């Protein structure tokens, strides 16, 4: 017989904790299980499905959200750890217009295909541009190197981020650096 942990009681998982945070600018509270990740809480309880689950181990960045202004993997933290934080998801960033220029450049250059990595890409690109207003192509590639995209080959994404940076700097859009 294979080993079974007889001490395990699934009933333990019934416990519920209330977490409160500022989500996309609104005070929000949510009942979560202690084992729920922030990703579970956002997607399942709060129905913010723009944040995606790709690997659940911090390797693909489909789950990125802004937590107190920094891009974090929502699959790698428990929802209870986000208590008191300020969280922004792709939905909030879209509605506020904070990433409208990045979205427009991604659209214009078709820097997405299936779109599953796209929210995480945008959030990471947004964080990059908030810290480095004029990144080189190598710096953009480096900053995005934790975001897995199987569809695009990355180049159009790099182009789009570079173009958004150039526009923010008031310059003209640079096409391929090559």
């Amino acid at each position: 017989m294979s080993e079974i942990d007889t001490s395990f009681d699934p009933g333990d998982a019934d416990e519920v904790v209330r977490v409160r945070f500022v989500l996309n600018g609104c005070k929000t509270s949510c009942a979560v299980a202690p084992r729920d990740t922030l990703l579970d809480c956002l997607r399942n309880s709060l129905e913010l499905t723009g944040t995606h689950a790709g690997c659940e181990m911090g390797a693909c960045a489909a789950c990125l959200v802004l937590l107190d202004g920094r891009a974090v993997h929502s699959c790698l933290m428990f929802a209870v750890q986000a208590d008191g934080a300020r969280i922004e998801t792709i939905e909030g960033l879209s509605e506020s217009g904070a990433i409208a220029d990045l979205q427009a450049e991604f659209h214009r250059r078709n820097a997405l295909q299936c779109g599953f990595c796209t929210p995480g890409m945008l959030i990471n690109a947004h964080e990059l541009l908030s810290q480095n207003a004029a990144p080189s192509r190598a710096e953009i590639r480096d900053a995005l190197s934790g975001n897995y995209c199987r569809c695009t080959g990355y180049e159009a994404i790099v182009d789009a981020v570079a173009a958004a940076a150039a526009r923010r700097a008031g310059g003209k859009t640079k096409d391929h650096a090559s």
Partner: protein
Amino acid sequence: MIAPLTSLDRPNSYIGRSVPRPNAKRLLAGRGHYVTDIKLPRMLHAAFLRSPHAHARIASIDVERARAVDGVHLVATGGDLAKICTPWTGTLDHFKGMISEPQLPLPLERVVWAGQAVVTVVAESRARAEDALELIAVDYEELPAVVDLDEARKPGAPLVNPAGHSNVCFRSQLDSGGVDDAFARAAHVVEEELSFGRHTPVTLEPRAIIADYDPDAGMLTVHHGTQTPYQFQDLYSRHFGIPEARVRVIAPDIGGSFGMKLHVYHEDMAVVGLAILLRRPVKFVADRMESFVSDIHARDHRVRARMALDESGEILAMDVHDVTAIGAFSTYPRTSVVEGNQVIRLIGAPYRFRSYRAALEVIFQNKVQTSQYRAVGHPIACAVTERMFDLAAMRVGRDPFEIRAQNLIADDAYPLASPTGYKFEALSHQLCLRRLRDMMNYDGLRTEQAALREHGIHRGIGIASFVEITNPSPAFYGVGGARISSQDGATLSLTPSGEVRCAISVTEQGQGTEAIVSQIVADQLGLAQEHVKVLTGDTEVTPHGGATWACRGAGIGGETALQAARVLKANILEIAALVLQEQPSALDIEGGEIVDAATRQQRLAVAEIARIAYFRSDTLPPGTQAQLTVSHHFAPQGYPFAFTNGIQGCHLELDVETGFIRLLKHFVVEDCGRIINPMLVDEQLRGGVVQGLGAALLEECRYGETGQLLNGSLADYLVPMAMEMPDIVIDHVETPTKDTVLGAKGCGEAGTAAASACVLNAVNDALAPFGAAINAIPITPARVLKALGRF
């Protein structure tokens, strides 16, 4: 080889224009609607207990404690599902002599790979279902596992299927004749054995399915992350005994597919069965660990090849032997032998030669199934062919470009059949070769390479010509008895407001199907693209069709849309002619207006025709019945496949101390016939190239001796990320197929087809001064250092 101008090339045509995808804005705003996002009322969640052994007999299963967990609705084993689901077998008639065991959603007696689903729990939440899995006890009796390819082929080897005689699934041979003679009179013979690692698609959205059965309506509805909803409608209907018209499969946004999401998976069939048993919606989303052990894998080939050449470097013959291992079953319904079949048929395809002999052996082993994944067989055939040409060039003392210019089929030699029987309508290898040479600045790169070698910097340059199979006719699957359609259908309606709705059977996974279909319909009907709404991915909405596989969306789906639009246009003009008291042939549509065909003078808005037809039919002549909805099907005829061609180049730098490879730049010249949307074609090429670069340098499913997958997570299985990937320069030649009005062929697999081959050649180019060579992909740093004798 540039196509003559037609009506598709007029200055304001949507065809040939880089318009952004209308449906991409939704995805950018986080408003995608993937199966993983869908919640249905009363929906339950399934989880699967998986085999820890690669091969074992199931002695007993104890599920009592799991059944007792609060929130658990059902625990099911193989026997429970076998009662309502008929078994399936992954063989096709045109692969003579192939065998594979019947499969069921969950096994009855034996597990045949580590990770195979054995028991399922359905509960209120996924977490609760996984809790209950912890309480299931399965008693296994381990059996000898067949892991290694060579061990599997030995006489007396343990058998994957103990009732069988050997581990052979399928053998095939091709012989055009004259091979032995050619080798006997050859001035040069080059020979190599090349191996290709097992890898897996790693779509970012894992497999996802929600099945819902309404017993009162007798209706099964499945939300399924798949490329091929009609294929699954047919399969669910037949295997669960539900009338086809009462099975609806909906494929919403799909988070990547690449051929992986068109195979029958055991868990998916189980979920449909569970929904029928429970009469409630049941959802299953593979987690990443489950994806690695249950999604199809691909490749895993070893090819021994010989090439005979005359004194001048002209190819006389090739003789190849491909051995591939496919896991414990052949995949259903497309089989696991198509890749090997395409490897032996595509080897040498870009080149002019007569004598070819090939043997294929397809072997079972205790691993997860392999099957069709982007560019099926192409990367292997291309790498074998192109490596042989580089070896030949070295042997004969010719430059890689020169020996290819000498041997590639001439651009004016078509139509032409390959020694393996493929029929080529018109290709442009020589022009592509010349374009690539200029685009790469090949001579400059060679000069730079020589100069840098003086400073201990080792750069490599590699090129690889390829053909790609696109627009498949029934010759691909239909002739083998598979109920997989090679035709597509579209229903076009003019709405009362004068807009057009197009429901079409080709599907969208982000490649831009909906964009190009709306471009074609808008172009043909003379409407603005934003007035064309395209619907895909729902068997209840669109006609039956092949959907998306093997590069058929633009070529077959696009032609379907074009022909349907022409039928609707004729019907619109017929009504317009009655209203305007003209002949239909004297009228045309432009910018949403009926115009005089000769003078282009506006006569009446299309919206006005729609208004009259729908709301004031009393004002039309008696007997008039306006047909402003048309359904139209198109099946490819003429050539069995529309082959495309192209060539790629790779420039890289090799660190001989660490074995690391830095990709500096990648180049593609590609000919996919008529280009509908250049931006989308380039994105297909770039994405495809990067998938091939991953295969070349990073990706490999590594197994231990007992058949355990050792690197089944995204932290351990390396995929290409932004930092390692180069910029990719692209150029096009356009040779439209004459089999269709549109002239489009596919472009989705071209990037993957040749990328790994030209990396292999470039690495070997960099290694050449050391007398070292690589004959396996992925080309890991360890393999490089081993080749250099430094590891």
